[in-house]
């Protein structure tokens, strides 16, 4: 079987397993809503200034909720030694990894796409004014989160305090991507398009994704097999 097909099979398996129970997605979604609610007490939610920090708020929500999905990605395989079976299966580690990244990507993206309109309604932010550019930023930022999150999900799956270790390790690494995504999102939700002033952030975000996808593919064999 060729590589792309193997990736697809792993991704489909993960998505199917998640969609049958919906445990991670439901938890992530509920968590995202709770944080969005909490933010309304942190500052005046009707103020004009809310829009200036909209990007920051949104990506904090995405990153926090995303980790709940990512934590389950490899932990789900622990029962019945499924992880050992997956690693022993004639699937290259890179294909297994990419399949999991894709599945996580769609799950986190789904949580984000539900949180976005809720955020728009709660905080009166016209987030659709630059819809497609915003989608591009969300897509790139989420890819970074999914790649880094999946590598570290594999890295932390067998260790003590797994649930705490994942966010502890990935947030500092994610800082460049999160900064770019926050800046661009803040601009886009108030209707300021991507232009010469902020295109550098977009390049940074894309560069981050490319670099870390490459490094992860290179090192994932060592993470999974040892």
């Amino acid at each position: 079987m060729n590589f792309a097909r193997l990736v697809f099979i792993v991704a489909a398996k993960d998505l199917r397993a998640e969609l049958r129970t919906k445990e991670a997605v439901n938890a992530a979604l509920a968590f995202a809503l709770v944080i969005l609610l909490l933010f309304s007490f942190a500052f005046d939610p009707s103020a004009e200034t809310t829009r200036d920090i909209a990007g920051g708020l949104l990506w904090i929500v995405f990153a926090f909720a995303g980790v709940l999905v990512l934590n389950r990605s490899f932990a789900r395989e622990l029962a019945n030694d499924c992880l050992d079976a997956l690693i022993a299966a004639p699937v290259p580690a890179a294909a297994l990894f990419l399949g999991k990244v894709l599945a996580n990507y769609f799950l986190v993206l789904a949580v984000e796409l539900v949180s976005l309109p809720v955020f728009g309604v709660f905080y009166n932010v016209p987030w659709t004014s630059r819809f497609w550019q915003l989608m591009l930023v969300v897509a790139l930022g989420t890819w970074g989160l999914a790649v880094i999150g999946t590598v570290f999900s594999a890295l932390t799956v067998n260790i003590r305090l797994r649930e705490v270790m994942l966010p502890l390790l990935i947030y500092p690494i994610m800082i460049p991507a999160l900064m770019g995504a926050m800046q661009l999102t803040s601009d886009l939700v108030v209707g300021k398009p991507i232009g010469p002033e902020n295109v550098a952030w977009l390049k940074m975000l894309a560069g981050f994704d490319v670099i870390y996808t490459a490094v992860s593919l290179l090192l994932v064999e060592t993470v999974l097999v040892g």
Partner: protein
Amino acid sequence: MSTRDKIIYALALAAMVLLTRNIYLIARLPGELQQGAIFKIIFFHVPVAATAMFASVFSLAASVLFLITKNFKYDALAVASTEVGLAFLAANLVTGSIWARVIWGVWWAWDVRLTSALVCWLLYAGYLILRQAIEEPTQRATFAAIFSIFAFIDVPIVYLSIRLFRTQHPGPVFFTSQGSFPHDWSMILMWNMFAMMMLAAVLTLVRLREEDAQREIDSLRRMAHAF
């Protein structure tokens, strides 16, 4: 005393002598025109930063070598230099903070260098926490090495990304044409850099010895359990 211990003591002694000389020279320098005496912190602030940077390069090299050779010698080197580097980076952040309080009036500013140094510190602290959470030595060494590689790649990206904001950290002043740093001051700075590197080398060697002892204890314990 083994030869290695003798080397450690000799290096430590040399570092102490050199540091004493440097502190004496720095204390005798006049205050700077605008900043007064507080400017002297640069003679420590910059050398500890350079040393921390060296340590991170060292731990990257050791981590990569471990992944290639699977020799635990390199794992010990990686953890030793990361820990020492972290301590030096902390010294860098603290001295910078003291300087900032006097000159800028605030303990902390969200500036390029400050933020990237802090991110760097957090990353390498994460490295040590990750090590603590893993029992099995091979897995601990492998995962720590992988994390070290990720962390090292991240630092320049963080620096570049935060550069897109404005900076207020002073630019380099020594050995550059625009700088106003007199040549003999630069020399003192270089000597202090040397002293700090020696200190770091001593600390790394001590830490390495500890790691060796730990491994020996572990293997003895395993042997005892085997019987």
